[in-house]
């Protein structure tokens, strides 16, 4: 049963990913991307890592997609389709991507992964993740956690400053 659900999710994800990179309407393409992200969240839920699935849903589906939709509406006329890609570039990029897929899959399938027994599989609980985030011992991740907080703060301030800078310059020119 889980196997069938996984295959359905996988096929849907691949189809929507292809549609997302080939659609000529930006707004449609972002909605297809949303379906791919939802599929990845579904896989996170299926391997019983509920915290990451929830993070994926809230940050990607709730935050990033909305940010994309807003900026597409700000900068692009929605009815204008993107110019079609010339066949030569499409063919070349497709060939390169296909070669990469084949090469990587050969490498993956020829490697002998030591599969664990199914009884050993366990759920990653939120409690475990929280303890790992804030402990500074052997298996603690406090340093990357603090780094990421500083990065997010800097990115937030930077995004505000960059997005407003055009207006500031205009004001300066008017004052002179």
């Amino acid at each position, binding site marked *: 049963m*889980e*196997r069938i659900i*996984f295959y359905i999710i*996988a096929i849907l*994800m*691949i189809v929507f990913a*292809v549609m*997302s*990179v080939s659609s000529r309407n930006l707004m449609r*393409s972002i909605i297809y991307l949303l379906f*791919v992200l939802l599929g*990845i969240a579904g*896989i*996170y839920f299926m*391997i019983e*890592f509920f915290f*990451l699935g929830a*993070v994926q849903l809230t*940050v*990607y589906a709730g935050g*990033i997609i909305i*940010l*994309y939709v807003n900026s*597409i509406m*700000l*900068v*692009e006329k929605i009815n204008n389709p*993107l110019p079609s*890609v010339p066949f030569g570039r499409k063919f070349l*990029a*497709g060939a*390169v*991507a*296909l070669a990469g*897929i084949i090469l*990587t*899959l050969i490498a*993956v*399938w020829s490697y002998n*992964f*030591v599969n*664990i027994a199914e009884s*050993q*599989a*366990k759920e*990653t609980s939120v409690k475990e*993740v929280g303890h*790992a985030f804030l402990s500074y011992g052997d*298996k603690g991740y406090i340093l*990357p956690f603090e780094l*990421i907080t500083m*990065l*997010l703060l800097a*990115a937030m301030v*930077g*995004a505000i400053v*960059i*997005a407003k*800078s*055009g207006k500031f310059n205009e004001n300066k020119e008017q004052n002179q």
Partner: protein
Amino acid sequence: MIAGVSIYEILTVSTIIFFIGIYGFVTRKNLIAMLMSVELILNSAALNFVIINKYLFPEALGGAMFSIFIIAVAAAETALALAIIINLYRLIMSLKTDDLETMKF
């Protein structure tokens, strides 16, 4: 882990999504569309981290942690890049990569 699904199949899916992202990044000429392909690439990388953590080292947490960090960095990157793109659109009224010549030397 998912019952009945081996690590190979999930790695296959993430590989295919990764290279679809590469294809989009190469063919697209619109800045926002290119950024969307980068999201695909980042997502497949994060999926790989989690899957390898879950299937091969179920006691460890490293891969899971770093996929959370990947999501955080991707969010920061998207916010900054979209800010730059909106600012750029004010300057040159276009999003095509061919028109971005202001930083060319």
